[in-house]
């Protein structure tokens, strides 16, 4: 499965949920396929998509919060898996597109070919940690996590076939933040999604 195909499977399943995107190819592919106000595109600060997503999830327990992460980002901040497992927000779904390379910088090898990240998540304490590698497995795995209590982890193994011509996110960082905050809105006491 190509990375693009994994995004094509997932994006139509999104409603108004906030999605925090890791930098590089994750941001660019998702932005290219469908820009959403509720997408937070993290263009720098590599490694922090997971902690940003955790912060959103802890402060908005009324919303399902999704992280679109990459293997390089997860490996850089493996300790954040422990923070997510320890704080255990039921409303957090952590999806990792694992292409085993640092693709947006020229496909240098990452370590995820040797380190099974879904097992790292499981042993850190995520109650659910799934791994898929076929296109038809993506939707059922995502729906299982979205319909259950989290934090849930989904590792999607994809081929490293990013098109370097895929554009960058064109919004300014301030625009990205403002749109994301507007899409999140304010928490209504007692509300549940």
């Amino acid at each position, binding site marked *: 499965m190509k990375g693009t195909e994994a995004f094509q499977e997932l994006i139509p399943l999104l409603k108004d949920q906030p999605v925090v995107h890791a930098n590089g190819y994750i941001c660019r592919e998702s932005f290219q396929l469908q820009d959403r106000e509720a997408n937070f595109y993290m*263009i*720098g600060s590599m*490694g922090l998509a997971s*902690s940003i997503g955790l912060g959103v999830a802890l402060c908005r327990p009324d919303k399902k919060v999704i992280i679109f992460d990459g293997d390089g980002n997860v490996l850089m901040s493996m*300790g954040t898996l422990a923070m997510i497992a320890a704080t255990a927000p039921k409303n957090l779904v952590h999806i990792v597109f694992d292409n085993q390379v640092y693709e947006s910088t020229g496909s240098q090898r990452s370590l995820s070919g040797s380190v099974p990240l879904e097992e790292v998540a499981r042993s850190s304490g995520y109650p659910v940690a799934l791994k898929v590698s076929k296109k038809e497995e993506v939707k059922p795995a995502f729906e299982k996590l979205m319909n259950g209590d989290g934090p849930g982890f989904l590792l999607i193994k994809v081929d490293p076939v990013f098109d370097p011509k895929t554009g960058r996110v064109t919004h300014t960082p*301030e625009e990205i933040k403002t749109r994301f905050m507007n899409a*999140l809105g304010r928490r209504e006491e007692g509300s549940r999604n």
Partner: protein
Amino acid sequence: MLSSQNFVDQLTDKGFNFFTGVPCSLLSGLISCLEKTPDVPYIPAVREDAAVGLCAGAYMAGSLPVLLMQNSGLGYCLNAFTSLNLIYKIPTLVIMSWRGCGGNDAPEHIIMGKINEDLLKAAGMDYAVITPENHRDVLERAVRKINEELPFTLLVKKGIFDERH
């Protein structure tokens, strides 16, 4: 010396309601009080930059975050401050202990103690050194900066707060 409990009360009165960080003995009183404060979380972070990310998410989700850390974690945070907080305009109040201040500390703190202020200045991170006399004024200054959606750092020297360890 400032009372940690009194300062925590001032922070919560100003609306700060989300706390995280990596401990330092100089901040042990503050963290100990925070852990006993009902209705506001103190989330132990694994590393300072992860705490920066956590605060950024909390702010965008409507909370007002505070990050407590030792200055030894400043290096880890510089990329997060410059490529997240400063360009997206995501504020966070950083309470940073100033180990190595004046060159009188354990060897591992001496160099960072010396360059601490220069690093903050070079990164464009506004800050103030908190004292028992100026603490209300610098907290007001921090709140004004945060209202402009920019981070602000309070540098804490040894002996400013009562310690609990």
